[in-house]
């Protein structure tokens, strides 16, 4: 038996995991990062458009601050988020971006003078002031009041990931790639690390630590049509679920992105629309203003995705061998802009579809269709990032339900979350590791190792007629067909039942090669049951939530129901032999909110079942605000009176801005 001891164990080597690891290592802890792939290949690299942070540097973002970012995030979440966490997030985001700049991320900068931009399909001239020259600039994204999304062309995730990974190298973080966590080691409600399989040698080892942080990203690959990398299979959430103790939050909250390209599903960034690109239908007509006259293509992602499908259902889709789609037209931005700021988008169109999106007219239009994109759900945590139920287990980034996104995430808030959560949760996590010891007996560690060892032998001894690949593909189809953008009770019920059957079938397979190492079919055989458990949490959570909120849209319950459903879904799997998760709910307290539930400002009006506490709390908020304003208090003091929040390190310090008076 091989046991690796360390102070802080991070599972997952994307932006969130690496940033958390840097936080731990800098506090003097021996920190190990485990990753399925070399860390610079993580899905974080695929983030194109940018990172939201209210710097307020450029002309179109002048006057931006934490309050506006907070309001946009809460509205974006359709009031499903934890407002305290959203506050922690928006306050730290400007610090994150400035830290990344000092780590070498080559953010695109403000250039003094005039430039042309396309706003609402019209050429507009923007003049940047001389005194802002060289500061970090930002672009427009959906659902935001200001141009807040900072970027490096359309390769933002890539440059951020390399910046953070390099910083981890600089601090000698012990990064070990091609390692997969199979189960969590825990005793008496406390987590002590994980059983890990080396993906090259097939060897099982234990990693034992004072604290463990899961940062394994989302679970998009339980769907067929997804923008996610092939490693985003949700197994990080699954191993937490399989403890029977840790819970997952809001797993049914799954975001669909409006503009992946058809048929490959590769994402064309929201920056395409943020920079002025528009959507067209089969007649070449720009249809979004007909549905969303105010925000048009830049309403939130859930709204735009649904409007596209609605328009296709109205007979305006473009027929293709892969079904109906609509067009994304960025040619109106001009070749120069595309070749500088949307180069990866151009390359994706050229290589995978043979289109040059800079070509004017229909020739350059790219076929797009909404597909699965982001997992708002994940391992449910406290604001410190620690599991509510399993002590010593932390989670951050897309793997977690922390929960600043609620039921819909705004573009540019996810890469931002990875690093910001890595900073905040990473520090709380490090403090936990400093304050607690490893007290688990070796025999217990051995028990967890033996369990996995026996499980792998069991899989290799299965002698059935099913194929693990077919089971996986059926799950993905099922999730697309019945748990997709538009949902209803009967289909969700069918999905839950069939997913349970598929879970049973995972034991009725035969794995051809009996090798323990270098055997991709064996890897599928232990991953797919985990994926099915995650899929069941999504489907069952969606079936039981009889309302529409954010990305969760029920055609049989069209309204957002703040009376019955202003809560968070919690799923757990206490009985390992069970075929479905258990569900409980965690209420959201309106009377503690800084921003009580209201209309989002986009999407259909009058679609809310209002909670009477909303008006009551709003009156309170207004009263406190007016009184304090009259006393000459500033916005920070008023905010503190409405909803105080804590942050580690010196992250609570006020953010300086060029526009400060």
């Amino acid at each position, binding site marked *: 038996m091989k046991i690796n001891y360390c102070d802080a164990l991070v599972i997952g080597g994307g932006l969130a995991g690496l940033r958390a690891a840097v936080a731990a290592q800098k506090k003097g802890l021996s920190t190990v990062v485990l990753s399925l*792939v*070399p860390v*610079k*290949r*993580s*899905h974080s*690299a*695929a983030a194109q458009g940018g990172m939201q942070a209210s710097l307020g540097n450029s002309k179109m973002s002048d006057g931006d601050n934490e309050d506006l970012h907070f309001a946009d995030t809460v509205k974006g979440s359709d009031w499903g988020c934890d407002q305290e966490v959203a506050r922690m997030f928006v306050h730290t985001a400007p610090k994150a*971006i*400035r*830290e990344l*700049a*000092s*780590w*070498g991320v*080559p*953010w*695109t*900068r403000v250039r003094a003078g005039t430039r042309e931009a396309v706003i609402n399909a019209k050429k507009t001239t923007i003049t940047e002031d001389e005194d802002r*020259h*060289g*500061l*970090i600039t930002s672009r427009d994204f959906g659902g935001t009041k200001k141009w807040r999304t900072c970027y*490096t062309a359309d*390769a933002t995730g*890539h*440059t951020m990931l390399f910046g953070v990974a*390099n*910083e981890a*190298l600089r601090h000698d973080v012990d990064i070990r*790639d091609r390692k997969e966590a199979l189960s969590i080691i825990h005793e008496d409600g406390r987590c002590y690390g994980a059983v890990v399989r080396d993906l*090259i040698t097939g060897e099982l080892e234990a990693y034992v630590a004072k604290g463990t942080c899961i940062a394994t990203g989302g679970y998009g690959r339980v769907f067929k049509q997804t923008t996610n*990398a*092939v490693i985003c299979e949700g197994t990080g959430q699954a191993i937490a679920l399989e403890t029977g103790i840790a819970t997952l939050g809001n797993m049914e909250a799954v975001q669909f992105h409006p503009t992946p390209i058809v*048929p*490959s599903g*590769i*994402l064309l960034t929201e920056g395409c629309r943020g920079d002025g690109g528009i959507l067209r239908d089969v007649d070449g007509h720009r249809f979004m203003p007909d549905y969303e006259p105010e925000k048009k293509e830049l309403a939130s992602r859930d709204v735009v995705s649904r409007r596209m499908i609605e328009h296709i259902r109205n007979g305006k889709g473009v027929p293709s*061998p892969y079904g109906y789609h609509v067009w994304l037209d960025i040619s109106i931005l001009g070749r120069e802009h595309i070749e500088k700021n949307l180069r*990866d988008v151009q*390359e*994706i169109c050229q*290589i*995978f*579809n043979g289109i040059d999106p800079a070509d004017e007219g229909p020739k350059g239009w790219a076929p797009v269709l909404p597909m699965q994109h982001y997992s708002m759900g994940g391992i449910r945590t406290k604001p410190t990032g620690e599991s509510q139920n399993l002590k010593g287990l932390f989670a951050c980034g897309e793997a977690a339900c922390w929960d600043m996104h609620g039921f819909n995430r705004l573009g540019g808030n996810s890469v931002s979350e990875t690093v910001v959560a890595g900073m905040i949760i990473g520090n709380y996590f490090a403090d936990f590791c400093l304050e607690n010891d490893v007290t688990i007996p070796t025999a217990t560690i051995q028990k967890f190792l033996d369990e996995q060892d026996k499980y792998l032998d069991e899989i290799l001894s299965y002698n059935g007629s099913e*194929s693990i*690949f077919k089971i996986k*593909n059926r799950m993905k189809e099922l999730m697309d067909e019945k748990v997709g953008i538009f949902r209803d009770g009967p289909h969700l019920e069918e999905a839950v039942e069939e997913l349970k059957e598929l879970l049973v079938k995972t034991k009725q397979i035969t794995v*051809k*090669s009996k*090798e323990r*190492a*270098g*055997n*991709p*079919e064996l890897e*599928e055989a232990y991953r797919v049951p985990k994926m099915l458990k995650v899929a069941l949490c999504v489907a069952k959570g969606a079936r039981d939530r009889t309302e529409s909120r954010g990305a969760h849209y029920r055609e049989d319950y069209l309204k957002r129901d703040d009376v019955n459903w202003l809560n968070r879904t919690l799923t757990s799997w206490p009985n390992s032999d069970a075929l479905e998760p258990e569900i409980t709910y965690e209420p959201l307290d309106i009377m503690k909110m800084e921003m009580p539930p209201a209309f989002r400002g986009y999407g259909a009006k009058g679609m809310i079942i209002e909670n009477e506490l909303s008006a009551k709390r709003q009156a309170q908020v207004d009263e406190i605000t007016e009184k304090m304003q009259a006393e000459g208090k500033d916005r920070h003091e008023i905010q503190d009176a409405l909803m105080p929040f804590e942050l580690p390190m*010196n992250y609570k*310090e006020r953010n*300086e801005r060029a526009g400060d008076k």
Partner: protein
Amino acid sequence: MSAQKGREITISVLKFNPRSKVSKPHFVDYKLEETPGMTLFIALNYIRENFDPDLSFDFVCRAGICGSCGMVVNGKPALACRTLIANYPEEKLTLMPMPAFELIKDLSVNTGKWMDKMSKRVESWIHSNEEVDISKMEERVDPDIADQTFELDRCIECGICVASCGTILMRPDFVGPVGLNRIARFEVDPHDNRTAEDFYELIGDDNGIFGCMSLMACEDHCPKHLPLQNKIAYLRRKLVSLR
């Protein structure tokens, strides 16, 4: 999808498991029908799911962004995810793992281990003693300089330049085009305080900037079209003056 039947193509793959006592390197042919827009990502997954569940290869983003899937396609290293089969008029594609890297199995090679060593060798991080207060305004950077840094920061460490490099075949410790590009990137970045002398310490030898034979296959094959030729020439001129 058109009703018309696609071409029958043959994907010939080098199979070998260096960890097995009985495995010997050999080619296996898989025949399949080409579908519109079929890439090697699609074809290899089809092969694994339908013909050979034991076949090892690496993909992550499948969109040309992460650099996981470098392999040698008909003699030239390329990213498999964005290799369109339609671009090959011959009906047979031969796939081999990239040379220069440790073989894991079949088409899978350990680029991570190589890149980690390279990153540590060129100290691939910002060198600065300045304590930055992240609550305060960020340091200004000229937009042109930021753009220049970004241009060189676009490297995805796919290893294709390394697999293309003649020098590496003779000098296994050669830092490779990817390592030299990394130096060029930090040389431009105003946040990094290292001097030309510092960079000379890192790469001023025959395993560094003076080992390059200027064959330039690195630039020919780079999927991100990085200006490797220019940058290597520039660095060599700059560092040779320090000799």
